[in-house]
């Protein structure tokens, strides 16, 4: 596929949250905070997305503490690259919107 297919909002915010390693609930909180409460990830949606992202190799799962079996997710180099390309794509969208609707915004 030419260029980069657009990421969903959920994928975008999950990858962005994992700029720093976090566990599942941490990703939900970070996403809500970053988006000013606009984007909320429900646990079932997040769980499915995390498994898919792990399968794709965009993030990895690390067991932090064997005792409480708490797991943290971390962005991989591939994931970081995809995130950077997405930010570029979003910039283009915003730039064109501003160029055409500039005065109305």
């Amino acid at each position, binding site marked *: 596929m030419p260029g980069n297919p657009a990421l969903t909002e959920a994928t975008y915010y999950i990858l962005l949250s994992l700029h720093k390693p976090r566990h599942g609930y941490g990703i939900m909180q970070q996403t809500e905070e970053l988006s000013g409460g606009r984007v909320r990830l*429900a646990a*079932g*949606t997040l769980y499915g997305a995390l498994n898919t992202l792990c399968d794709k190799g965009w993030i990895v799962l690390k067991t932090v503490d064997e005792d409480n079996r708490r797991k943290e997710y971390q962005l991989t180099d591939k994931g970081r690259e995809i995130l950077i390309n997405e930010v570029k794509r979003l910039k283009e969208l915003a730039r064109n919107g501003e160029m055409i609707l500039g005065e109305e915004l």
Partner: protein
Amino acid sequence: MERKTITKWFWVWQFEDEEKWLNEMAASGWVLESVGFCRYTFVRCEPGAYTVRTEMRPYDEQYVRFMEETGAEYVGRMMMWIYFRKKTEDGVFDLYSDIDSRISHLDRIGKVLLAIGGANLLIGVVNSFNPGARVGWVNLLCATLLMYGLGRIHGKKEALEKERELHE
């Protein structure tokens, strides 16, 4: 603690109605405590203190632990349906927050209906040609009902897919 058990039947395509009913019970001061076959046991709670959610998902211990980490409480499971509740003071509680994951939930339900419906159809047809077995029609009836359920689930899925054409 005051408890009560209610026997109630929901068809598989009525899972949203079931969830709505469970939340109406919670709003009136009865929160789901355990589930059985068509049996729901409730315990007294502050009216509106809980949100209850249900979904079809093969049992996955990792998933239950993940949910618990986010503050949800595992209530129980019946067949492939799993029930959670969460205190309303701990925030909004939903299982799915985008169209894609709602569609994949419906796909999971559809696959199970298709598998059970297909098996019943096969058994029904085989039994109909077997003069010794007289219960083939029961399987055919089951198959018809399950296929009807599949149609209802498919209808819900189509509505979501239409919505997805415009936004996630």
